[in-house]
């Protein structure tokens, strides 16, 4: 039997089994999900071995002992992570984890700063730059667009400002002005999440159409 036919058969039945969840949770759905977790974990582990670990391991310089030892250190540190599976000696793996967390934190700071904060702040400033506007009506629209976006950015950030003072009666309340700004922020957040929800729903619908069309095509090809 050609491999394409086997692939189509398995894919067809797994799709039907996953869709059976719409009727309710059932043993077939659980079988499909456990199979999926097992296969995808095994596949991910394979890809990591072939794409991350093996290329670095095979390029270790065997001629220079110092370079070889330095090159083997991360592999050794990675191996110590296995001790995390045994609570009694799990401290051995903390060094590897410390390097991972330290480098990860620094990379995250760099990414947040260079990849988000600076470009987003720049874009917020550029939104009020009218030099590129051709006509006066275009400039008015650009001004409106820029003001709405800037207001949205400020109000959304204000919503996440949770600092509050304790009133004489013991209750904790935010500043009334901040409370008002936060309410405006909620409006912007609700609209943003509405748009994001629509986008995710559209993606899910596209996946639904693709799966249904694959089921129909399979039945058609099977019936000839």
């Amino acid at each position, binding site marked *: 039997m050609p491999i394409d036919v086997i692939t189509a*058969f398995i894919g067809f039945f*797994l799709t039907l089994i*996953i*869709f059976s969840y*719409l009727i309710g949770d059932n043993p077939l759905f659980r079988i499909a999900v*456990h*199979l*999926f977790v*097992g296969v*995808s*974990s*095994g*596949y991910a582990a*394979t890809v990591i071995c*072939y794409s*991350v670990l093996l290329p*670095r391991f095979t390029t270790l310089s065997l001629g220079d002992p110092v370079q070889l030892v330095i090159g083997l*250190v*991360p*592999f050794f*540190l990675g191996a110590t*992570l*296995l001790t995390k599976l045994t609570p009694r000696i799990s*401290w051995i793996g*903390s060094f590897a*984890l*410390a*390097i*991972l967390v*330290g*480098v990860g*934190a*620094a*990379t995250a*700071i760099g990414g*947040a*700063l260079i990849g988000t*904060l600076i470009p*987003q702040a720049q874009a917020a400033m550029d939104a009020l730059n009218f030099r590129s506007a051709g006509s006066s009506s275009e400039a008015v629209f650009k001004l409106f667009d820029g003001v*709405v*976006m800037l*207001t*949205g950015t400020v109000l*959304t950030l204000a919503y996440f400002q949770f600092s509050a003072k304790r009133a004489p009666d013991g209750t904790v309340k935010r500043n009334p002005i901040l409370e008002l700004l936060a309410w405006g*922020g*909620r409006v912007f*957040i*609700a*609209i*943003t999440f*509405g748009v*994001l*929800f629509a*986008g995710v*729903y*559209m*993606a899910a*619908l596209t*996946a*639904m159409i693709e799966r249904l069309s694959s089921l129909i095509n399979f039945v058609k090809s099977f019936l000839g």
Partner: protein
Amino acid sequence: MRIFTAVFAIASGLIVLLGYFFPNQLEPLRLFLVDWAVIIAGMAVLVGVANLAFVQMEKIRTRQKNGSYSALLVLSLIVTFGLGLVFGPQHQIMRLAMDAVIFPVEASLMAILAVTLIYASIRLFRRRADAMTVLFLIVAVLFLLAIMPTPFGPIPGDWIVLEFAGMFSRGGARGLLIGVALGTLLTGLRVLFGIDRPYGGN
């Protein structure tokens, strides 16, 4: 020991962070440490997969409820990983695993999300029918109608919805993105200052 792990984390983090600002002096060291972190992260994923297998095997050994599902998971994991190690991820057998199991199940799970999202929206409206919920659902429905291809072409006035919802959502999204970035910055700095020690150095 706790101090040593903190020193490891802070030193490696500071070198990588300073490498962004002093590329001429620290760039090679930064790349060297990032490469180390990539290897350790790769091995951490392998340890995670091993842990998944051990936990499921423990379920089988202690004859817990639904142990047969765990057996299927462990078997499929071992077979896929074993075949992958022997033949490599580009081999036809591994493509079978991807095309017959991973892609159809992922796409089908994404597809049933279309139904579960509707269900979640109805539940949201029942449990918390305030002004923000109504606004959220109205925007979602209007935006969906505006971007969705219909058999009778675009709905009238779809550009107004796209223009205004886009304008407002861009402002909100920018605020959320800046908020997330500030949160990431703060969390990263807390780790680099040794205030948070998620590597077990507390």
